[in-house]
C-alpha cells in the first residue's frame, strides 16, 4: 500500500514538474526547455551516468563500496574501442562488458577475498584503469601498427565498424512525426508533453533502450528474485546470510563483477555514441554515477531520477546556455510555492500539534525563502547571460540544491563497506 502511494506521489510530482517547466517556458520563451532535442540529449547524457550508477548499486547492495567505477568505465571504453574497430559493435559490446568486469573482478579479489578497505581498492582501480589503457594504446596503437593505419592514435582508437541500430516510434516520432508537429506548435503544456515524449522516442539507439530497461530489470532481480534477496542480504547482514547457508563470497563476487560490467557497459555506450574510444572520454562519469546512486538512495528509481536530473541539466547547458537563466525563475517559483504551502499550513485550523507554533527556525526559513525568491527574480530580470563558467556547472549546482532541499532519509545498506570474513562475526 505504501508503495502504491509513493508511486502515485512520484507521478503527481512529475506532472507538477512538467506543468511548472511549461509555465516557465511560456513565460520566458526558451522552447529548448522541453524540446525533444533537449530531452533526447538529456537521455543520452544520462544513460552512461545511470549505467555507472547501476554498477554502484549492484556492488553496494551486496555490501561492497565501489569507488572504482570510473576506472572500470575507462577499461570498458578502451576494450570496446579496441574490439569494435576490428569486429564490429557486438564485439565492442562484449569486450567493453568484459573490460569493466575485469576491473570488477580485481575489486572483488581485493575486497572480498583479501578484505582490503573498499575505498583503497577503488582508488587503486581508478589509477590502474587509465594507466593500463594508456599503456595498451601506447603499445597497440603506436605509429606503424595496423590500428594506426586504420586511424588509431595514442589517444583514440579507430572507429567502430558498422552501425548500431536506432529506433523511432512510428507515426508519432517518425514519418508523419505527429509529436514533432505538436511540439512545434509551442502550445502551453501540449507542446511540452509532446516534446518530452518525442525526445524519448526519436532516434533512440538500441543501447539506450537496453540501458533504460536495465533499471526495472535491476529492480526486479534485486527485489523480486531469490538471487536478489540473497544479494541484498549480503549488504545488510552477511553473517545472517552466511548462517542460513548463503555463500556470501560468491554473491559478492558476482555482484562486484557485474558492477564492473555495468560500468563497462557505460563505457561501451560512450564509445558507441562517439563511434570510437577517445582517451579521457569518461570525464568523471563514474564518480557522477556514484553520486547519482547515493542521490537515489541506493534504489534504481532514485538512481534514474538522479541521472535524469544530471543529464537534463547537462543537455540544457550544452545546447542552450541562456536557457539556464530560467532556472532562476524556476527556483523563485518553487520557493513561492513552498511559502504558499507553509502559510496555508499555519493558517489552517487542524494542523498537527508538533507544528502548532512555528519556532523561530521556521520563521527564519520562511523569511529566507521569501528573500531567496525575490533575489532569484532579481537575478533573472537583470542577468541576461551568465558567464559561461557558471553555465558549465549547472548540473552540479542543481544536484547540490536538490540534495539540500530534499529530505535526507538516505539509508545505505547496513553492512555496506564492511569487510566481511566467513566465520568471523561483527
Amino acid at each position: 500500500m505504501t508503495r502504491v502511494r509513493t508511486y502515485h506521489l512520484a507521478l503527481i510530482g512529475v506532472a507538477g514538474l512538467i506543468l511548472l517547466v511549461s509555465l516557465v517556458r511560456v513565460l520566458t520563451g526558451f522552447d529548448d526547455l522541453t524540446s525533444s532535442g533537449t530531452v533526447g540529449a538529456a537521455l543520452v547524457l544520462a544513460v552512461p551516468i545511470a549505467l555507472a550508477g547501476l554498477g554502484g548499486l549492484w556492488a553496494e547492495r551486496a555490501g561492497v563500496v565501489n569507488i572504482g567505477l570510473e576506472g572500470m568505465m575507462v577499461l570498458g571504453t578502451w576494450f570496446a574501442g579496441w574490439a569494435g574497430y576490428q569486429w564490429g559493435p557486438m564485439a565492442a559490446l562484449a569486450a567493453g562488458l568484459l573490460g569493466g568486469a575485469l576491473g570488477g573482478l580485481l575489486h572483488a579479489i581485493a575486497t572480498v577475498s583479501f578484505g582490503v578497505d573498499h575505498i583503497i581498492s577503488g582508488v587503486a582501480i581508478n589509477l590502474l584503469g587509465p594507466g593500463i589503457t594508456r599503456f595498451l594504446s601506447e603499445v597497440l596503437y603506436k605509429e606503424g601498427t595496423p590500428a594506426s593505419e586504420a586511424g588509431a592514435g595514442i589517444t583514440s582508437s579507430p572507429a567502430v565498424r558498422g552501425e548500431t541500430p536506432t529506433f523511432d516510434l512510428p507515426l508519432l516520432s517518425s514519418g508523419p512525426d505527429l509529436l514533432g508537429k505538436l511540439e512545434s506548435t509551442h502550445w502551453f503544456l501540449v507542446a511540452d508533453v509532446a516534446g518530452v515524449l518525442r525526445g524519448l522516442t526519436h532516434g533512440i539507439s538500441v543501447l539506450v533502450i537496453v540501458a533504460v530497461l536495465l533499471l526495472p530489470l535491476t529492480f526486479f532481480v534485486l527485489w523480486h528474485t531469490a538471487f536478489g534477496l540473497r544479494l541484498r542480504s549480503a549488504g545488510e547482514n552477511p553473517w545472517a546470510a552466511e548462517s542460513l547457508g548463503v555463500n556470501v563470497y560468491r554473491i559478492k563476487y558476482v555482484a562486484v563483477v557485474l558492477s564492473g560490467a555495468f560500468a563497462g557497459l557505460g563505457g561501451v555506450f560512450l564509445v558507441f555514441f562517439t563511434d570510437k574510444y577517445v582517451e579521457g572520454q569518461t570525464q568523471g562519469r563514474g564518480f557522477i554515477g556514484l553520486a547519482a546512486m547515493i542521490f537515489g538512495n541506493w534504489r534504481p528509481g532514485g538512481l534514474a531520477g538522479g541521472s535524469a536530473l544530471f543529464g537534463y541539466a547537462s543537455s540544457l547547458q550544452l545546447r542552450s546556455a541562456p536557457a539556464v537563466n530560467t532556472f532562476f525563475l524556476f527556483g523563485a517559483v518553487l520557493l513561492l510555492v513552498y511559502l504558499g504551502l507553509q502559510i496555508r499550513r499555519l493558517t489552517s485550523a487542524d494542523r498537527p500539534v508538533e507544528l502548532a507554533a512555528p519556532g523561530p527556525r521556521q520563521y527564519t526559513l520562511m523569511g529566507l525563502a521569501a528573500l531567496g525568491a525575490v533575489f532569484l527574480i532579481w537575478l533573472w530580470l537583470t542577468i541576461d547571460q551568465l558567464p559561461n563558467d557558471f553555465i558549465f556547472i549547472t548540473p552540479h549546482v542543481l544536484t547540490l540544491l536538490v540534495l539540500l532541499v530534499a529530505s535526507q532519509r538516505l539509508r545505505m545498506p547496513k553492512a555496506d563497506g564492511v569487510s566481511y570474513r566467513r566465520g568471523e562475526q561483527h
Partner: protein
Amino acid sequence: MPAGLNRALLTVAGAAVAVVLAIAICSVAIVVAGGSPFDALAAFFDFGNSARAESNSVATFLNRAVPLFIAGLAVAVGFRMNLFNIGVEGQYRIAAICAAFVGSTFTAPAPIQIGIIILVAAAVGGLYALIPAVMKVTRGVNEVISTIMLNYIAIALSAYLLREPFAGERAEGQLNTTTPPLPESGMFPDLNFVFEWFGMLPPTRNGGLWGFLLVAVALGVVIWVVLERTRFGFTIKASGLNSPAALASGVNPKKMIIAAMVLSGAIAGLIGLPEILGDRGAYTNNFTAGLGFLGIAVALLGRNKPVGIAFAALLFAFLDRAQGALQFADIPASVVTIIQGAIVLLVVVANEVTNRVALRIEERRAAQQLGRNTPVEVAA
C-alpha cells in the same frame, strides 16, 4: 615496545614484498610491450649522467613529493574520521588562486608576505571545505556527493576568477592566463644550498629545490602531534573508530565533522603553494591539477598516518620522476601509473595479511600471559 616493533617490522616486510610484486607485474607488461624490464628498472634509478642532471632530478623528485605529501595529509585528516573528503581537489584549486591573487596585491617583507599567502590559502581551503561539512551537519548531505560536485564547481569558479576579477597582465603573444605575479618577497627561498652539503652541484635554477619542503615537513610534524597527542586528535580518532561510542563519551559529532573537514580543507589549501611560491609565482590556467585525487591514494597507502604518508609521497614522486627517463629508454611512461596503482592495491593486500598475522601474534601473547590456552584437568 616489542609488540609495536614486531608489527612495524611485519608491515615494512609486507610493503617491500608488495612493491617487488608490483614491479614484477609491470615487468611482464614491459616485456609484452617489447621492452626490457631491466632498462626500465635502470631508468627509475637513472638520475642523469652529469652532475647537473643529477641534482635536477633530485630536485624534481623532492619537489613532486611535497604537494603529494600535503595532499595526503589533507585527505588523511578526513579519512581518520571516516569522512570521505573527495573534495581536496577543488579545495586546493580555489585556495591556490585566491592565495596567489591576494599575495600579488601587496608587498611586504618576505616572512609577512609568505605568511599571509599561506594563511589565505588555508583559510580559503578551509572555508570551501566548510560547505560540504555544513551541508552534512544540517541537512545530512552525503559528503561524497557534495565534494564531487564541489570539485567541478571549483574548476569553473577558478576559471571565472582567473579570467575576470583575478586576471593579471600578460605579455604580448602569451596565451596562458595567470593571476598577477607575486612580488619577489612572495617567492619562497629555495633550498639549493642543501645540495652542497651532499657534495652535489646545486641546481642552477631559481627555486630548484622548493623551500616549501620545510613547511611541508613542519606541517607533517604538527599534524602528527595534533592527531596523536592532543585531545582534539583523540576525539578525531575516537569518532573514526566508533562514532556511537564517541557520541556517548561526550564528543559532539557535528562539531567534529566541521572541525575535521575544515582542518582537512585548510591543509588542502596549501597543496598548490609549493608550485606557486617556489616556481610559477602566480596561478595559471595550466596549474597542476589532480593532486587531490592522487592525495587519496597517497593517504591510503600511508595508512592515514603522517610518517606513512611521507613514505608514500616519496614513493609516488620517485616513480613520477622517472617519466622522462623511461621515455629516453623507449619504454611507455604509463607503466608509472600502472606501478602506482598496483602498489596501492598490493600494499594494502599485504597490510591486510600482515595485520592478521600481527593480530594473531598479539592475541596469542595476551592469551599466553593469561594462561588461557591450557585446558584445565577436570575430574568428571
